[in-house]
């Protein structure tokens, strides 16, 4: 599923040109095309292919959750049986309150958790209520869990990819 797909230099130039965002003009794909010396049709066709291949997850707005009042962001982490993690992960990922949900490795003894679900809330109480919903869904498969809140942003830059 995550095999790299071969991109050519034109794809990479389009990726670089759109990494910081789309131009806010009536014909944004035409502006990108002009900048790169391509036709707008080619830029649009390639972007559609990148979406098709899953290289572009989606095109849209990324809300700044702090500004929207979602100031309590809890990384909820769960120790569930490895044989169950895929089934449970899909169930947890389908919850509206979860923005990211992954299976990650444990490091015993200090880190027993193998299922990560990022939960956003306006308060820690809200995050905890949502974590209780997750705990309810996991039932007896939940052997241990905790919530890690971010206390300080040490660095936040966009991902630099396609360079």
């Amino acid at each position: 599923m995550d095999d790299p797909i071969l991109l050519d230099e034109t794809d990479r130039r389009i990726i670089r040109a759109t990494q910081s965002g789309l131009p806010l003009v009536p014909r944004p794909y035409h502006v990108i095309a002009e900048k790169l010396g391509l036709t707008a049709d080619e830029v649009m066709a390639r972007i559609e292919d990148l979406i098709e291949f899953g290289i572009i997850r989606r095109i849209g707005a990324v809300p700044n959750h702090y500004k929207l009042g979602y100031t309590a962001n809890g990384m909820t982490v769960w120790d569930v049986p490895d044989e169950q993690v895929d089934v449970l992960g899909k169930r947890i990922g389908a919850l509206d309150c979860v923005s990211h949900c992954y299976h990650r490795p444990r490091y015993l003894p200090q880190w027993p958790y193998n299922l990560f679900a990022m939960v956003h809330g306006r308060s820690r109480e809200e995050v905890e209520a949502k974590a209780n919903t997750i705990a309810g869904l996991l039932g007896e498969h939940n052997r241990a869990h905790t919530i890690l809140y971010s206390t300080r942003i040490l660095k936040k830059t966009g991902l630099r990819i396609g360079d």
Partner: protein
Amino acid sequence: MNYTERAIINGLQGGFPVCERPFLAAAEQLGLSEETLINGLRCLLDNETLSRFGPMYHAERLGGALSLVAMEIPAADFDRVADQVNAFPEVAHNYARDHALNMWFVLATEKPERKDWILGEIERETGYRAYDMPKLAEYFVGLRLEV
């Protein structure tokens, strides 16, 4: 926040069209004019209600490596280690969290082999272990914030 801003935030978290006049097409869906949508987006980006507007890329499918890394750093060394870690341009986000593993950062590299090299450098420079937690499976990625 007014009706227009709310409509833009709730309606444009994904699915922006690829066509000649995409803002016009999206605006029609939201019951707005093209100009109102473009100006509204510009305002929301300027006042940082939105952190970005455009395509979201799937880093691993571009052939790179993306990982979450955790470290356990004593308070006295925390700021020094944060500076050393943040100095790598491949470190995209770094958060302090309330746990024994108190530093969590995302490492994004163009080439998978570079990830291990950077982790080795970070351990050597800081003197602390870096716990590499790459995703083994992804079940959901998206943001569904209602305002």
